């Protein structure tokens, strides 16, 4: 009986030691949807690059974490986090109340704002000017929320598409009068098309992108936040920002 007890205890200790060793060297899997240039996209050689990728690499280095980035489709990215396929998500995810109820976010690593894209000749100055015009958005995006609130959820003037490039194509072909989307992506796409320009509406609220972890994963969240603080402090954040957006990096709130 005593022997059995001893064996079980030692086995338990062994398992504990093994699992803690594993936890220390474990490579964390990062999910990112690589169709969101310039935040994350695949190069022809299947390498995932972008602002998000550079940021998470810098953060992981500061926090002493081993990471592996996996291209995860946007539609299934939160499911992948829930069932443990990925340990964290960095994919241009806007921090909002609805998402905070189900997941935990790090402090912001990017300041996002909605931006309107129109044809060069357009006289649109702000969101209100879009009344009665056809507006293209990505289904379920922040742009969709704004347009739905402004023009009505079931308004036929709102045209919803699956991705930003499709919305921009539709705008270039005059299928819609304007497109609303995240500033980073819209600005990047607009600079590709000479016939388009962007319009900033000062009334659009400031938003932030955060890194997402499973709710309650405080250990990982703290490590990531510490890494983020270090990345902001030593100037890597400003440098990465400048590299991808050719602009000075805005100051980010600590929470």
């Amino acid at each position: 009986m005593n022997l059995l007890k001893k064996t079980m205890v030692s086995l338990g200790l062994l398992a504990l030691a093994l699992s803690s060793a594993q936890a220390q060297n474990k490579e964390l899997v990062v999910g990112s949807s690589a169709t969101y240039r310039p935040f994350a996209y695949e190069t022809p050689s299947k390498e995932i690059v972008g602002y998000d990728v550079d940021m998470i690499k810098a953060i992981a280095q500061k926090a002493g974490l081993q990471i592996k980035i996996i291209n995860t489709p946007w539609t299934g990215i939160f499911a992948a986090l829930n069932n443990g396929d990925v340990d964290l998500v960095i994919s241009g995810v806007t921090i909002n109340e609805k998402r905070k109820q189900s997941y935990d976010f790090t402090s912001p690593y990017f300041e996002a704002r909605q931006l309107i894209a129109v044809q060069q000749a357009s006289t649109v100055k702000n969101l209100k000017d879009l009344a009665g015009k056809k507006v293209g958005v990505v289904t379920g995006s922040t742009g969709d929320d704004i347009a739905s609130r402004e023009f009505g959820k079931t308004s036929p003037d709102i045209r919803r598409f699956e991705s930003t490039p499709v919305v921009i194509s539709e705008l270039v072909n005059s299928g819609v009068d304007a497109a609303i989307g995240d500033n980073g992506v819209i600005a990047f796409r607009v600079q590709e098309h000479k016939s388009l320009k962007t319009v900033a509406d000062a009334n659009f609220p400031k938003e932030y992108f955060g890194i997402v972890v499973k709710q309650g994963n405080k250990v990982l969240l703290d490590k990531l936040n510490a890494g983020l603080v270090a990345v902001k402090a030593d100037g890597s954040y400003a440098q990465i920002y400048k590299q991808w957006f050719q602009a000075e990096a805005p100051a980010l709130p600590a929470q």
Partner: protein
Amino acid sequence: MEPILWFGWFRADIIAEYAMLFWRGLQMTVTVTVICIVQGTALGLAVGMARLAEARHSPARQLCTYALRWPSTVYVSFFRGTPLFVQILLIHFAVLPLFVNPADGLLISGELARSLKQNYGAFLSGVIALTLNAGAYISEIFRAGIQSIDRGQSEAARSLGMSYRRTMFHVILPQAFRRMLPPLGNNAIALLKDSSLISAIGLAELAYAARTVAGAYSRYWEPYLVISLMYWVMTLGLAYAVRRLEARYGRGDTR
């Protein structure tokens, strides 16, 4: 709006909130389907006959081969050999902008092109793609139907002095039509379901309504279950109509 729960899990309120989108989507799906069935059948008849065109003497013989049989064979091969989804995107984002474009459309340009694209762009592209696709399949049904009629029938008609035209429309096609009804019905049902693919280019039909709701609430059961039932009821109706037609035209066969 207060959440309304049916059976403890079905959020009826979000469907009610988007009811207009579903109702207009239903109308759009029915409209597209009816137009494409009619046009696709007409196109299918023309192409099916073109594929069977034969003449004994020059130059009609060469004309039949190079102006009718070859082009129609290539057409059928292309539209049966490529995915409908790809055809819709190709027509909407590449082919149609070539012809209808505010800047330099080959067919229509200027303000008319702009308003046409904004109000009917996705509808036009979708109907064209679906009609061309259905025409290819239906032409095969016609070809098989016509070829299934005993050669003696047309020989008898021709020997009675009937022209090719009269032989075709008064002797061959009425008999062939009876045999073609079941596959034509199948095709109509496929067409109704395939119309959901047009939502990718932003046409506000049933699948678009469901996608909008799913995007806004991240709930998938409610919207997709609702449209599944709507599609199912419609296909049941179509199947019933085809059965009635079969019974009606089948009467001639019973002796």
